[in-house]
């Protein structure tokens, strides 16, 4: 097992350096003068310009510049935002809990509903329920979620007035961010109604972000269950006279979950792509909205290292999924 982890870990290193190369190149491919871009000003005095070029290390040859960049990263220096003069790392860590809270809520929604729908569809294969669920799943999979968000806002927020239009909590509440998770902070604050209000803010974005994962989970669960239900051990369990619920949920589902979890773990990129759009629609103050705003404002340090941080996050999650999969399934562990 250790050698399996070591092998996977060794694969991470070139990927990590590849990503730093990409973010390094990103900032240098921008057309225009790098100093003007970095300073966010035009027509800088030539002497100052040369000084800035030197200070930023941009007068060195490219390989030296890349080594400088890696050196900075190694010291944990991710640069400053041009707009706020805050460090990129600080901004990222402040905003990330909001994205995490939204993603976890979306996963909870997608996971419970998707597993349930997938299992029932597999058990009632060929029924109208099965066809209905699979049809809806295909529609969910094809959903332009930025539009889906607008439609839900139009219906539930504007027409019915059930949920707020945007943000994480009403401005009336003064919540000190201790954990960064609005639900937990609102609960702890003991302000009457704060928790319910935070929950109301969370529901629509979570549904929107969870729609595509929900479709994927329902489809995967159904096909994995169909596969597993054909196995001999399921027939044995049934023959032993175990209750149908026990056979399905304990014996079959446990094995059907393995492929579902793997495919799902690898969907984190899709989830983060979705978070960018969902956060933009609902004005949810997370890292997705932050990056899009940085791109529109040409805040290049944020763009460069924000992308680096998110890529590292994706790699780490995929790595963890790989390891977990190896733990569950010895066949993977012993592959060359």
């Amino acid at each position, binding site marked *: 097992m250790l050698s399996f982890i070591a092998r996977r870990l060794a694969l991470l290193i070139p990927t990590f350096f590849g990503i730093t190369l990409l973010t390094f190149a990103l900032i240098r491919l921008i057309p225009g003068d790098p100093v003007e871009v970095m300073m966010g000003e035009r027509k800088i005095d030539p002497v100052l310009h040369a000084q800035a070029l030197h200070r930023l290390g941009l007068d060195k040859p490219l390989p030296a510049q890349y080594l400088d960049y890696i050196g900075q990263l190694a010291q944990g220096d991710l640069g400053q935002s041009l707009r706020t003069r805050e460090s990129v790392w600080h901004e990222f860590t402040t905003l990330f809990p909001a994205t995490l809270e939204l993603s976890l809520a979306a996963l909870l929604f997608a996971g419970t509903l998707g597993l349930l729908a997938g299992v029932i569809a597999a058990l009632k294969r060929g029924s109208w329920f099965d066809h209905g669920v699979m049809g809806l799943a295909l529609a969910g999979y094809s959903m332009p979620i930025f539009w889906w968000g607008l439609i839900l806002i139009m219906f539930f927020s504007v027409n019915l007035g059930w949920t707020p239009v945007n943000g994480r909590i009403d401005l009336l509440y003064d919540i000190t961010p201790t954990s960064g998770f609005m639900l937990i902070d609102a609960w702890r604050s003991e302000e009457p109604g704060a928790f319910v209000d935070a929950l109301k803010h969370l529901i629509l974005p979570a549904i929107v972000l969870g729609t595509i994962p929900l479709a994927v989970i329902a489809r995967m669960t159904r096909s994995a269950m169909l596969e597993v239900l054909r196995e001999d051990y399921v027939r044995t369990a049934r023959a032993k006279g175990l209750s149908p619920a026990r056979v399905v949920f304990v014996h079959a589902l446990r094995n059907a979950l393995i492929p579902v979890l793997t495919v799902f773990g690898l969907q984190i990129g899709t989830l983060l792509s979705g978070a*960018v759009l969902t956060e933009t629609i609902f004005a949810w103050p997370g890292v997705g909205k932050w*990056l899009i705003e940085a791109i529109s404002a040409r805040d290049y340090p944020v763009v460069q290292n924000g992308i680096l941080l998110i890529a590292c996050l994706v790699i780490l999650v995929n790595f963890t999924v790989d390891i977990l999969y190896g733990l569950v399934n010895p066949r993977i562990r012993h592959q060359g």
Partner: protein
Amino acid sequence: MQPTSAVPATDASLFYPSPLKEFWQAFAHNKGAVGGLAFMTLIVFCALFAPWIAPHDYSEQYRDFLLTPPVWLEGGQWQFLLGTDELGRDLLSRLIVGARLSLLIGLTSVVISLLPGVLLGLLAGFFPRILGPGIMRLMDVMLALPSLLLAVAIVAILGPGLINTVIAIAVVSLPSYVRLTRAAVIGELDRDYVTASRLAGASLPRLMFITVLPNCMAPLIVQASLSFSSAILDAAALGFLGLGVQPPTPEWGSMLASARDYIERAWWVVSLPGLTILLSVLAINLIGDGLRDALDPKLKNAA
């Protein structure tokens, strides 16, 4: 003149059906796929003949008819079947012309990522020691970035616009072609027919493109249909974020972006462009499912 075909009459069912016919039979078995194909035919038709079908000029602003509802609602006008937008432009005409753009983006981005993707995949499969690891690590790097974020980053560098949208989407969908081709190639290389062809002295390009590649086509065609639909989605998402095709060009995604402010007053400006995107993407995915069932029976029911 005597008919030259002096072949004795045989029962037609004894012959193998032609591959095309066999394919169509398998494809037509899937009702959803046929429905999807019908809808896409309609969209393609609209896109091809947009200037003749569209009832109005897509950029003509009818100042007296701002936000006219669709014809079946109170206040609807027969001259604007699906209503007008905030500048008084005919929505139906804009959707029809928008179909051109979405299909164009989808098609070009699929082509310009399929070709290098297949080539890189072939190289990685044929040279597993020299080129394979390098190419695959590069693809890992690209896969580590969420696709929309990578596309946004590329557009941020190159600037918004039609061509850059296509480039961004093509780059984003490259890794899946490389991985699929490589996996298929590695599966084929051990087969006897490849060995036979090698022994017969086939050159490397011949082995790659004539011997092996045609046998790897099934998953690639399916993937192409899937990335066609995600290209349309991604292009619309970029347009929605204001980074794609720029107004006043009627792109489905950017139409939604400008409609956001009218969410309380004019549901049709918000609903119809998105519904068009949803239906088109759904139709293509249905076709993709049908193609997969017909071309690659192994993948059937694999979600």
